[in-house]
C-alpha cells in the first residue's frame, strides 16, 4: 500500500459505506446506493444541530429525577448524580463509579470532543490528524454506552413492583437522557472524518507542495 493520494485528488468520489470509487460527479454509489459527496459540506451544520439538541436534553436529564422509589410509605426521588452518591454511601462505590462515568463523564466528554473536532476542522489545530482521528473513533465507539442508565431504569421499573413493600417508577429525566444520548450519537455520526485529513493536507501543502 502506497503513500496517500486521496480519491478526490485523483478525480474520484468514494463511497464511505462500501469503499467503492466512482468518477467525480456520480450522484449515487452504483453498488450500495449511498448518495455520494466527495466532502460533506453540510456535515458540520448537521453535527452542530444534533449537538445543540443533545445538550438541550442533557440539562433536564440531570435536573429532574431519574427514579422514583417507594419503600413502604416513604417516597424518594433520585437524580442521576444523587443516585450515584447514594450508591457510593451505601457501600457500592464501584457501581457508583460506573454510573458516574457512563452518565456524567462520557456525555460531557463527548460534547467537548465533538465540539472541538468540529471547530478544529474549520480553524486547524496543533493536534495531529492521527490524534484527532483517534478521538473521533473513541467518541463513536463509546457513545452508545451512555444508554446504560436508561436501561437500568427500565429494568428496575419492570422488576421492583412489590406492592407496598417497594416499587420503582421512572422519572421524566429518563426520557430526556435517552434523547440526549441518541442526539449525540447522531451528531457524531454526522461528522465526516475525511475533513480532519483534508485540513492536515492543506497545512502541509502551503509549504512544500504546489
Amino acid at each position, binding site marked *: 500500500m502506497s503513500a496517500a493520494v486521496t480519491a478526490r485528488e485523483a478525480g474520484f468520489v468514494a463511497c464511505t459505506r*462500501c*469503499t467503492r470509487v466512482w468518477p467525480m460527479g456520480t450522484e449515487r454509489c452504483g453498488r*450500495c446506493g449511498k448518495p455520494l459527496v466527495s466532502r460533506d459540506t453540510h456535515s458540520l451544520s448537521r453535527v452542530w444541530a444534533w449537538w445543540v439538541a443533545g445538550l438541550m436534553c442533557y440539562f433536564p436529564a440531570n435536573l429532574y429525577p431519574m427514579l422514583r422509589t417507594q419503600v413502604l410509605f416513604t417516597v424518594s426521588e433520585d437524580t442521576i448524580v444523587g443516585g450515584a452518591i447514594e450508591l457510593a454511601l451505601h457501600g457500592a462505590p464501584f457501581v457508583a463509579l460506573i454510573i458516574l462515568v457512563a452518565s456524567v463523564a462520557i456525555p460531557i466528554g463527548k460534547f467537548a470532543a465533538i465540539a472541538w473536532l468540529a471547530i478544529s476542522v474549520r480553524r486547524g489545530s496543533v493536534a495531529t490528524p492521527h490524534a484527532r482521528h483517534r478521538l473521533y473513533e473513541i467518541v463513536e465507539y463509546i457513545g452508545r454506552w451512555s444508554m446504560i442508565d436508561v436501561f437500568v431504569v427500565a429494568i428496575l421499573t419492570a422488576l421492583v413492583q412489590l406492592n407496598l413493600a417497594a416499587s420503582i417508577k421512572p422519572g421524566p429525566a429518563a*426520557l430526556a437522557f435517552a434523547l440526549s444520548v441518541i442526539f449525540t450519537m447522531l451528531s457524531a455520526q454526522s461528522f465526516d472524518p*475525511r475533513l480532519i485529513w483534508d485540513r492536515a493536507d492543506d497545512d502541509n501543502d502551503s509549504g512544500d507542495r504546489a
Partner: protein
Amino acid sequence: MPRIDIARADLAELIACPQCDALYRAKMPAHGERAVCARCHTVLIAPRKRAGMIIIALSGASLVLVLGAVWFPFLKISRQGFVNEATLLDAALSFTGGPLLVLSLAVTALIVLVPLARAILTIYVLGPLVFDRPAPPGALRLFALAEALRPWSMAEIFALGCAVALVKVADLANLSFGPAFWMFAALVFLTVIHDRWMCRWSVWEALEHGYTARQRKVPA
C-alpha cells in the same frame, strides 16, 4: 505507487479509505491478514477462512438467544414474601403512560428488534453467498441497512445494565439472575466475535461479483 497508475486503473479495482479518503489499489491479503490504511490505520480488508459460514452460525445463535431472552425472566426479586420476575418484554414495556411510552418503544427497538433484524438480515444476505448461490433480491440494500443498524444494537449494554441494577437494589430486596441474563451475557461475546470475523469489503465485493468470482481473484 505513482499517481498516474491509480488514475488509469479500473475503478472496480480501487478502494478508498472511508475515514480519510486515501486511495489504494485493492489487493486481497492472505487469509487472517489485514489490509490497513497507511494514513489513518483504519482496517480496510480483513478476510478470514470460512468467515461466511461462521458469521451465519453466529447470527443464528444470536437469533435464538434474543428470542429466548425475550421469554425467560432475566432478574428475580424477592422481599418480605413478595416475589417478582421480570422478562425483557416487561423491561422494554415498563415506561407506560404519557410521553414515557416513546421511551418504551425505543428501548424495545434497541435491545430486541434491532439485534433481531441484524441477525435475520445477515443470514438472508450471506446465506446464499456461502452456498454459492446468486445474491438474494435486494441484498445490497439490505446489507447496507444491517450496517446502518450496527451502532443501534445495544443488547450488550443492556447486559451490563442488568448487573448494575442488581447492585443498585441489593439493599432493597434480594435479587438473582434468571436464564435470560446468561443468554444476554453470551450474546455479548457472540457480537464481539461476529464483528471480528466480518470483513465488510469482502461482503460488498461478493455481493457485486458473486462469491466464486471473488475467490478466484484472491491470489492477485
